[in-house]
């Protein structure tokens, strides 16, 4: 009877361990699937600057991309025309390149290309601005080198006490 008992224990332990770990894995898998989310697009990056005390040239933040995903967004030319005046073109091109998209022209085109019937430029702008998402990575201040990590698409811009 004693030896039979020990083997029983082993079996049941193995079974529960297996069950628990599979539950755990399923849960993790669910989290992985759910993590295919959005956030941190170039439109936001173009507006962000480093806020640390004493920094004069905190824009633009350099992008270190570890994971970039592309998500489709509805194309709205009016919005793009409205935003075009506010965008820092160089920062946009640099940022797009760090995220793996090099289709944008180097120099800022003049406004007439926005009104043209040909939508290729607007489509490229739309893709770069709204459809590239930085999921994991970091934003680096150009002056101090301070890294703002990006997790799940959310950049952590909280400053430490001495940086305010």
């Amino acid at each position, binding site marked *: *009877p004693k030896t039979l*008992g020990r083997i*029983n*224990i082993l079996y*049941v*332990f193995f079974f*529960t*361990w297996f069950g*628990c*770990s599979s*539950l*755990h894995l399923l*849960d*993790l898998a669910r*989290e992985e699937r*759910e993590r295919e*989310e*959005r*956030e*941190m*697009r170039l*439109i*936001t990056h*173009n*507006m*962000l*600057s*480093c*806020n640390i005390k004493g920094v004069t040239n*905190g*824009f633009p933040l350099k992008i270190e991309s570890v994971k970039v995903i592309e998500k489709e967004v509805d194309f*709205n030319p*009016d*919005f793009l025309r*409205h*935003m075009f005046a*506010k965008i*820092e073109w160089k920062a946009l091109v640099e940022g797009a390149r760090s995220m793996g998209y090099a289709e944008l022209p180097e120099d800022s085109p003049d406004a007439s290309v926005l009104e043209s019937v040909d939508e290729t430029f607007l489509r490229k702008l739309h893709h770069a601005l*709204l459809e590239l998402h930085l999921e994991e990575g970091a934003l680096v201040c150009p002056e101090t080198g301070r890294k703002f990590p990006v997790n*799940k*698409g*959310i*950049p*952590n*811009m*909280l*400053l430490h*006490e001495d940086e*305010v």
Partner: protein
Amino acid sequence: EIQRRSFLVLLLLPSAAFLSLSLSLTNSVPVLQSFRIGTALKRFIMSSRPELLAPPEIFYDESEARKYTSSSRIVQIQAELSERALELLALPEDGVPRFLLDIGCGSGLSGETISENGHQWIGLDISASMLNVAVEREVEGDLLLSDMGQGLGLRAGVIDGAISISAVQWLCNADKSSHEPRLRLKAFFGSLYRCLSRGARAVFQVYPENLAQRELILKQALQAGFGGGLVVDYPHSTKKKKEFLVLTCGSVPTSIEDSCSEDDDSEDDDSEDGKIGVSDRNRPRKRQRTNEKRKGKGKGREWVLKKKEQSRRKGNDVPHDSKYTARKRKSRF
């Protein structure tokens, strides 16, 4: 037989422990969080003012964030407040989506209203748990984990409008020893003024604790260069009363009255000329002389009509007045 039974019991204990350990690791069982009875008791005592309990990044932890977002009452109130704030923002109705800022976006409840109105937005919040809930809900705006009291860190003139629902009052409390609410408000309003484009507005729905807080917020806003004032919805009702701080940036001279809808009962204390006019709602009222004869005979039609009017002003659903109002019923009623 007894040996086998005791073995089974011994097996069940560690497997149960293993299960609970793995589940707690995945944080998927909120039941385990309720073991913290201490905070629950505190919350029961001071449930109306969360900013007196803990700093926002600690108060809005994971369980609180889930509770907040799953409460249908809160979802509905936030949606209403966001709609009203967007209305007060008075964005030009030309169908062009605008680029807005949602300060203290939390789990994205107000941001969803912005997306429904077709605009793009950036959301800021200091609580990582709330932002995680927002990510789960797949909100359409970009989210930033940042402290609004440290300055917004946005370039000049890029934002077309800013809203904030139930968030700015958190700035008035010093959550760390290095915090000075005045300086934090100054940094916030200063950076906000810079990043708003000309003619843009900022609408904040706030829950200030007292007159001193209202004055503090308004003063810092005016010092930063904003013009504007306070819009109060349903000022006569303590439950429904909501305060919106509407700040204008630049030289577009539209008055605030234009943006009020007809069925809203709102008044505003305008401070465009630089002075702050803040009046306390509890004005000492003159003692009404009680009519001795009235008291004896009971409450007549006039009294009933007066009470119905008061209730209407509070915003309640009241049947309309007719010739049957307060008519004398048969004695058996």
